[in-house]
């Protein structure tokens, strides 16, 4: 894929964010990583980029659950409740492996749930696989806002 993929990471821990940045660097898939450190900023970012059909609207969201101001599940619910951005896959990437968090995340239509490993090697491997899966295997909706009235081709 030649297009540079854009990933929005919602992560309040600067060290976790930096580790993720390094892991993405090692993955050798051309990408752009934007990090915001809380839930409110995440939603602001999505509203300002995606509704305006800007190029900065992310292709994939990596969402931590334990966030200041607005927690991850709330952010997830708002993303999935907004017709303009709900097509963007949200990968939950968190330290929690509490069953209730896993269940709630899927109920709120997270694409998948990943528990952050402590080990960097494992973390880098996960980042690599997530990118491969979303940007080499699956077909994502084209970038930009989609309001359900469906722009683009009609099925023949």
């Amino acid at each position, binding site marked *: 894929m030649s297009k540079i993929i854009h990933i929005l990471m919602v992560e309040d821990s600067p*060290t976790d964010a930096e580790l993720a940045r*390094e892991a993405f660097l090692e993955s050798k898939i051309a990408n752009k990583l934007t990090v915001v450190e809380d839930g409110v900023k995440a939603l602001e970012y999505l509203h300002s980029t995606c509704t305006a059909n800007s190029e900065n609207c992310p292709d994939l969201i990596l969402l931590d659950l334990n966030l200041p101001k607005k927690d991850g599940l709330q952010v997830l619910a708002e993303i999935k409740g907004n017709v303009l951005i709900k097509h963007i896959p949200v990968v939950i990437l968190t330290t*929690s492996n509490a*069953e209730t968090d896993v269940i709630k995340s899927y109920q709120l239509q997270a694409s998948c749930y990943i528990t952050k490993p*402590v*080990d*960097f090697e494992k*973390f880098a491997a996960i980042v690599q696989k997530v990118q491969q899966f979303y940007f080499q295997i699956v077909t994502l909706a084209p970038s930009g806002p989609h309001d359900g009235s469906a722009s683009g081709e009609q099925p023949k």
Partner: protein
Amino acid sequence: MGSRQWLRELGWTTGTNMNAMISDSSEEKVQLGDVQRALLNILEDSDAEKLRLEVTLKAMINILSDSSEEKVRLDEVQRALLNILDDFNIEQDKLKERTSELQTAIGEMTRSNKELQQFAYVCSHDLQEPLRAVVGFLQLLDRRYRGKLDEKADQWITHSVEGANRMQVLITDLLTLSRVESLGIAPRPTEASEALKEAQENLSTLIAESNAVITIKGNLPKVMADRTQLMQLFQNLIANAIKFRGLEEPRVEISATFDSEANQWLFAVRDNGIGFDMEHAQRIFTIFQRLHTRTEYAGTGIGLAICKKIVERLGERIWAESQLGKGATFFFTLSAPK
């Protein structure tokens, strides 16, 4: 409650004709035998929970038995009964007081227990983030700078990563321990064989690598347990048996025998490992207590503490019997479904 009403109800519940005897009697005197029989009925029915009442009643019965007369005065019986009533009320007040004291104590214990669990959970959970920073950046150093520093620096990085990894295992184990209470569900009928099968699947790598042979003697029963925790219990005990193996390949035998009197199953997990001196039989279940150095046997000293917590949460017992060099057997009880 008025004394007459109380007596009437007491007479009613004991199924005697005491009620009629006390209130409806037109006679001045009643049959001594009737009073005695009624009192004995009360004594049997009050299930002896109020010791003082029992003593007073017994004393009264004795007084009545000593009487040489066939009949006693009704007002004497009534007076005696009112005395019992007074004693009974005092006893009840005391009982109420003690119950409320106990309730307060239980409430406090529950709260502090909950706080402790929350503390353990938050600790283990929130500790992961800084730990990830330590491990992560050390590993990054290792990846990007190995060979660029000197040999000693490389070694120090290796030691640091190992230390951090051990801490991670410790935190995970502590988290598991704190979750025995916080995530445990009420016991329900559970197939022990299924929990054991799952435990064996989880340990498949360890079992294969150590050439361990796990045998199940007879059929395992259905017991009252939390399935996930029963699985964890088997898993920890089998992993323990394999870890502390001797020179021979590990053999682990699992069996269950029924005690019909207690409606209880006694499980035994027997191994042919190095065993331990019975003086340590209690200590091995205490958190962080280890009988060996980390270089001899790796581990956090939490595994058996988790087992103990799982079993004791169900109000059951766990213990071990062993002889140094002659293997060990871990026993635990579980109730049969009613």
